[in-house]
């Protein structure tokens, strides 16, 4: 890991919340506009954040708080590693750990809503984990390495050879961003049969921590999307923003589905697409047949 990588990684840790918070604000603004409303100012997320920080602490159990810190710190670690151009597989594993911390947080208090939310959250992990891992594999097949740095060295945009993988990643993204139709464990909007699902029992500054983590997550995910057009990177960034916009639209044109649907869609479509894409590469750019 070169000094440059360290620098970028650390810079990302500082800047990600700003970008993420702003993007979430844009999300709310655009969503409002799509619903024919004016919507909140784009800085709204930061107001929310600081307001939450200023509330009195109200907690249920200690465990819940500990895990939520883990959630934040591990997500930050994943962000750092992605920007420091480390191994994609490891980044996804760390992300899974972070996600699990959120679930543990939800599980660590005996509250029906947060626990059902936790269960649904693991179902979500079951849905998107394979897609992410397989996407990493597909990228590997193109670049010959699992390291993010390899993608940059690869030069040629991945999107051209991995279009279906990209689509699959979009499915995973929808789940990860908690957007309709897959906002089943905790919806970003408040109206859900599980109240706020995994976040139900958090309040005040711990909710702010979760919000912060979401910002990091958002940046991480969009950065991953940008990797599909890593050279030149500005196209990748535009691509990521376009994808984000697409997610907003999808969020606004679909109803929430149930976990069974989510699982079948992400496995059949997501995993299926990646499989087809890999076969496509094999046939088109064919490594010779081996047995």
């Amino acid at each position, binding site marked *: 890991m070169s000094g440059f990588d360290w620098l970028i990684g650390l810079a990302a840790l500082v800047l990600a919340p700003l970008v993420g918070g702003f993007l979430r604000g844009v999300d709310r603004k655009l969503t409002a506009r799509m619903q024919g409303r004016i919507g909140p100012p784009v800085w709204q997320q930061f107001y929310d954040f600081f307001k939450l920080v200023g509330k009195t602490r*109200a907690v249920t159990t200690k465990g819940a708080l500990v895990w939520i810190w883990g959630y934040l710190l591990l997500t930050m*670690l994943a962000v750092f590693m992605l920007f420091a151009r480390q191994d994609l597989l490891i980044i996804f594993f760390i992300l899974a750990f972070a996600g699990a911390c959120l679930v543990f947080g939800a599980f660590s208090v005996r509250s029906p809503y947060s626990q059902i939310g936790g269960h649904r959250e693991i179902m979500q992990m079951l849905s998107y984990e394979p897609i992410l891992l397989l996407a990493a594999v597909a990228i590997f097949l193109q670049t010959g390495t699992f390291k993010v740095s390899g993608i940059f060295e690869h030069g040629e945009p991945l999107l051209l050879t991995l279009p279906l993988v990209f689509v699959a990643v979009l499915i995973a993204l929808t789940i990860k961003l908690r957007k309709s139709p897959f906002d089943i464990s905790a919806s970003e909007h408040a109206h859900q049969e599980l109240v706020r699902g995994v976040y139900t029992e958090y309040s005040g500054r711990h909710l702010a921590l979760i919000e912060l983590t979401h910002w990091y997550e958002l940046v991480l995910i969009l950065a991953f999307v940008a990797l599909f057009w890593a050279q030149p990177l500005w196209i990748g960034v535009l691509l990521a923003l376009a994808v984000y916009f697409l997610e907003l639209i999808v969020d606004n044109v679909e109803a929430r589905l149930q976990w069974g649907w989510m699982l079948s869609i992400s496995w059949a479509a997501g995993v299926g697409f990646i499989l087809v894409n890999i076969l496509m590469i094999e046939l088109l750019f064919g490594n010779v047949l081996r047995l």
Partner: protein
Amino acid sequence: MAGEALIAILILLPVATALAGLAVKNEQLRRPLIILPCAVLIAASLLLTFQVAAHGPLTLTPAASWDTIILVLELVLLAYFVYVGVVRKHVLVLGLGALQLVLFTLLKFVWLPSGFKVQPALYIDLLAVVMCLVISVVGALIVIYGLNYMQNHERHLKLSATRQHIFFFFLVGFLGAMNGVVFANSLLWLFFFWELTTLCCYHLIRHDLTEEAEQSALRALWMNLFGGVALLTGMALTYQASGTLSLLDITGLGAVGSVLLLPLALFCLAGFTKAAQVPFQRWLLGAMVAPTPVSALLHSSTMVKAGVYLVLRLAPAYEGTYLTAVLAVFGAFVFMVTSLLAISQRISKRVLAYSTISSLGLVICLAGINTGLAIAAAVALIIFHAVTKGLLFLVVGIVEQDIHSRDIEDMEGLTTRLPLVSGLAILGMIVILFVPFGVLFTKWAGLQAAATPFSDLYPLVVVFLAVGSAAGVVFWVRWIGRLISVVSPAEGTSAESRPEPRLSGSYLVVFSLLAGAVVLSALAAPLVSGLINPTVVAMGYSPALDTTGWHLATPYGFFSPWALFVVIALALVLPALLVKIRPEEVRPVYLCGENQPAAGPTFRSIADQPVPAQTGGIYWTEAFGEKSLNAWVNGAGIVLLAALIAGVIV
């Protein structure tokens, strides 16, 4: 010490101890009688490791009289299986036992020339040493654990006469048999020890002599006998094709011609039955009725590993053949489906059993992939799996003896009741599940190995691996979740809180040792450079892992266990230390505004009556239950096995 002596100790000391133990019915006496040899065993295995690591493989051909002894014992053993079949009126056991006896007699006395002898009979390379370490260190610790466990167990069952001597006879003797399996080079010897483990397995499962135990034991027996038949057939065919029964010869030839493929496939089949791979998984699930040390020792860390050991041992032989692809697909398939099946399980030991099968599937898959990286991952997985799964089984055993239940639902909020034990359990599961720990390192390496197109079927393999590892997350995370689900202090302490069980010495020894091993697993790099890479090299592969700077690097990826370990430990430990909650800050949970002060979350419901809110685990029984999946899983498993055999015949 000379290698020969070490080998003798490792095989014979357990047997001797077992025999001695049979005579001792006094618990006080039994303790030193068993603990001492165990310590010796551990020491011997460590010494052997250094010896082999430093001076290369050991060979040993005992005097010819040993061959005779073994032959006699073998015949007795096979006859005993037939006897069991007759007495228990079990057609399958009877049939398969008889078949084995016939096959063996034919092989020994008809097909093989008289005086046929395999040189060397025992061959101890690094792979064997790794297995031996697992068997002797983890195994010995489990045996020591068993001392206390069985006391409590019998106290709980209120037995009039102790049956512990029988238990320890098989348990300790088993260690010797197991070492025999991994040391054997002669397939004839291997077969003997193999059958010996089957015998121990049968008796240990039926130890409690309940109807369920008997049935499970018989099921385990016939399935293992089936494996024995496959093994024997394979031996016969091998001899026919190549005139040898030495593993060294078979693997040493490098990639063999297609003549040996069928026997190799049959050996793998034998391995699958031992490793309880689909569709033979039912015997292992049934075996969970046995006392927990048995599950930990035989059914997770060692005996089932004999199956994958055989497959792994033969890996160089089928490198680049049709077998690799099928094995990889089969292993990955088992890895996936058993992980999925585990999602619907709420009996803790069944979850562990499924996850064991799944890990073994992964080893088989890696053996199938058959590259240096894959083999390294497989060896690492054998080590890490034995340690972690052993730990979890033992923890479950303690929990079970305390709460008298194996049901994960009854472990809800265990962290308040048994903080130490549940802490160990959580740690164990985290170590299994997450970076930067050992098991995940193998998944990392395994995925990379699977993604390097080793065969045209590799996309299928990676898909299975990806889905399977995600499924693993589901049941482990949920289990941890059940353990840590506690009542908010605002709602009073839960009613069931009571003092922790007395921490007896052996518990403490076992757990501190195992937890220590867990921490060591975080230091994967030295382990790889010191043991795993040499093993891979010794098996004839090029080492794929670079360990400079104690990082782990493959040509395709980079992973720094210790660095991540430090960061992640800080991310979890610092909050745990720094976060404090004050009593005035705690509030009850959200119950739609109908909270009612009581012990635990309670809401006012119909007719203003308070009703406790329950937070059960969700097991998605309909989607992942055995009922809905088993037919598919077994069907696909059988198809894959048929493909395995048919493919090599055609």
